């Protein structure tokens, strides 16, 4: 009888230290009935079994029920295929954003609610303020993962807990150690989770064929060849071509080449020399699929229809320092529509920003550290 008075929480446990501690903190809290879950996604190097095992060990130690939720097919379709299709089109999609949107806070949340959950919890470094349901940068600025969560909606956040947002990573490790969690010393995962130790380009090669194309300099001179534009990202260097000119002259001080543009139709890469080359910079970007987490916030920054522009802070890559910018509604003709999703927005940076890859997420922040929302760079 007593048990249903508790709030039921499904914790997404990856087998890492962060979600282990998230589960631990909740399990310690007498308000909650905690259930551990490992989400089985798509994984090509087969290390998932070991991670599930680590998660299970922690759940067993905490004496909480533990289940594996099999979302492999869905993950493959909604995250992996999405990413491959993005690369095919020549853009640089972010699988982590997609995984959060579709898997963790999509299907997993849905399943958990179907199983009587009041909440789901994850080991994300982010803070949730209630009752307004706004997300804030984590206490640990270095680990802050708010960037990956810009797609979340009020409906989702209503059922979310982020137990470790108020801790530093070092504190999280300390808690894990003190509690005796077996994952306390486990290394942090890096890169794209479903790839494991497989190299990203090798993975893409399974799906995208090699097609030789030209590498051109900014002034249109051919300086080398590449394997197909879809394998490259804006801002990438070390693309494996010789700088012809410097190769001949030999003595001239050479600067590295950076990709500044991809022409998918013609299969051409354009590169510029030197990391401060003006061609690497952009002053303005367009966004699609914009989401504002809190409509109140969007009003505060004057969007979308009160005021056409507003000062915000923005980052276009994970862990990039926040940049001052103005956001404006590009479609003034729908200014009276309350729908703000999917409408096109423009961001103007106060100072030009380099290495901006279409497909990546631009995420907006307020001056108080609130993550306001984001959109996909087009």
């Amino acid at each position, binding site marked *: 009888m007593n048990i249903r008075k508790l709030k039921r929480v499904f914790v997404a446990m990856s087998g890492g230290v962060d979600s282990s501690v998230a589960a631990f903190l909740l399990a310690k809290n007498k308000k909650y009935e905690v259930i551990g879950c490992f989400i*089985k996604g798509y994984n090509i190097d087969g290390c998932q079994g070991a991670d599930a095992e680590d998660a299970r060990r922690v759940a067993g130690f905490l004496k909480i029920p533990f*289940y*594996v*939720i*099999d979302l492999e097919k869905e993950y493959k379709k909604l995250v992996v295929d999405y990413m491959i299709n993005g690369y095919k089109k020549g853009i640089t999609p972010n699988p982590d954003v997609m995984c959060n949107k579709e898997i963790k806070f999509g299907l997993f949340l849905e*399943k958990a609610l179907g*199983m*009587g959950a009041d909440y789901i919890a994850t080991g994300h470094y982010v803070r949730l303020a209630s009752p307004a349901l706004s997300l804030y940068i984590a206490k640990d600025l270095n680990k802050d993962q708010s960037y990956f969560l810009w797609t979340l909606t009020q409906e989702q956040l209503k059922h979310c807990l982020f137990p470790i947002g108020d801790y530093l990573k070092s504190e999280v490790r300390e808690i894990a150690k003190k509690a005796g969690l077996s994952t306390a010393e486990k290394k942090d995962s890096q890169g794209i989770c479903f790839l494991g130790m497989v190299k990203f380009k090798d993975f893409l090669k399974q799906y995208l064929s090699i097609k030789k194309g030209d590498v051109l300099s900014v002034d249109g001179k051919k300086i080398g060849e590449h394997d197909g534009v879809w394998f490259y990202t804006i801002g990438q260097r070390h693309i494996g071509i010789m700088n012809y000119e410097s190769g001949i002259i030999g003595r001239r001080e050479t600067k590295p080449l950076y990709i500044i543009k991809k022409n998918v139709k013609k299969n051409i890469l354009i590169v510029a020399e030197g990391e401060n080359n003006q061609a690497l910079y952009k002053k303005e970007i367009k966004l699609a699929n914009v989401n504002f987490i809190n409509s109140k916030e969007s009003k505060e920054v004057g969007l979308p229809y009160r005021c056409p522009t507003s000062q915000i802070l923005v980052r276009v890559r994970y862990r990039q320092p926040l940049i001052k910018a103005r956001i404006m509604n590009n479609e003034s003709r729908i200014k009276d529509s309350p729908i703000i999703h999917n409408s096109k927005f423009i961001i103007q940076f106060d100072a030009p920003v380099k290495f901006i890859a279409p497909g990546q997420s631009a995420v907006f922040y307020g001056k108080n550290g609130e993550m306001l929302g984001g959109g996909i760079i087009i």
Partner: protein
Amino acid sequence: MKRIYLDYAATTPVDPLVKKAMEPYFCQKFGNPSSLHFFGQEAMAAIDESREKIAKVIGANFREVIFTGSATEANNLALRGIIKGFRFQVLGFSNKNQKYTLTPNTQNLTPRIIVSAIEHESILETVRDLESEDVEVIYLPVDREGLVDLKKLKESLNERTVLVSIMYANNEIGTIQPISAIVEIVRKFRMQNAELRKNNSKFLIDPLGICLRQKHNSELATALPLLHTDAVQSFQYLDCDVNKLGVDLMTLSSHKIYGPKGAGALYIRNPKHEIRNSKQILNTKSQTPNKQVSNFDIRISNLQQLVKPIVVGGGQEFGFRSGTENVAAIVGFAKAVGLISNSRELENKRVKKLSDYFWKELKKINPKVQINGASDVRCRALGVNKLPNILNIYFPGKLSEDLLIKLDLAGVAVSGGSACSARASKPSYVLKSCGLAENRIKSSLRFSLGRFTTKAEIDEAIKRIGPVV
């Protein structure tokens, strides 16, 4: 919340009487059965007694019961041991690469094993592994009820077939195989084979394609193919007398019959045990089937010579399974076997009544549910038999993995097929082999009742299942 356990086919609680029988063997009678002193003798006596008890219940001889660490190990010993024994004793070499030097290249010496497609994984994975060691495996299909295709069995038997392994009753759907009909088919084939061999015994090269290095080996070859049955699930409910069944090998498990985990047994028929018996006391342990044996030895214990050990060492269990015996578990296992043999019929009726009641009540909650495998109606119509305690149920429109979690959180423990290493449930290959559609397989759960299931528990389970399905 009092939890309700409806997964007896996965494992059973240890019966309190079994626990009591085991207790002295942890702290007091802890000796190593191989030790020569008092402590060792005490432990060995306990194992002897346990072996005697189990042998008696299944109608076997003392020396025909080999204790192992699990039924999986017993199955491995049966399959791998026979392949090893066949190569060593019948073909006259232990290494498959040797055959090219011993026999004309034209001869096909690849041994064949026949299994059903719905065997337990400990059989299926073992034969899959053996396939990589030049063993040919035939997987017999089953029908919608889970019965093996006997016609296909007949067609699959050939002179290279060394073993047929078909489970007595299935762990997921409870279907009972017609073992006597299978025995009949195998025996008939064996006799035809033996006749052919006898008439041509002067040839070094067996006319059926097997090169026999020595005369005595041809005698062994006439015992082929052997018939093994995995009786792990059936022992609680069916008479497993090996003479009535007519099998050559049989696997039993302790923890499925209210005994402890960590004990299994393999019965290996030893038709000439009468002669063997008198010598046994003198020389039990040194008699390992591993050693090169004289013609005389072959004559007195011939069939067991076809099984070579896969774990070697101190030569325990007549050399078939080395490793210090798990005395307490073996004692518990024997006690559990004893308890069943006294109460089988009554328990059968009681459990059948309960599972019928459960099914009736479940139908009331959700009229769309269906039985997988052999339903009662089909059983009557087709003369199929099934275990009384297993109900594999299809819940249209529901996902079994979700149902399982919901039920577990409501305190009802059931099973949804087997689990993979990451603990996610895999779609059942048993249901797939029965020809069920994928969405049906993904919407099915196994409920299995047992000794401690009560009507009150069933009522409570139904109450909890109601809101979920």
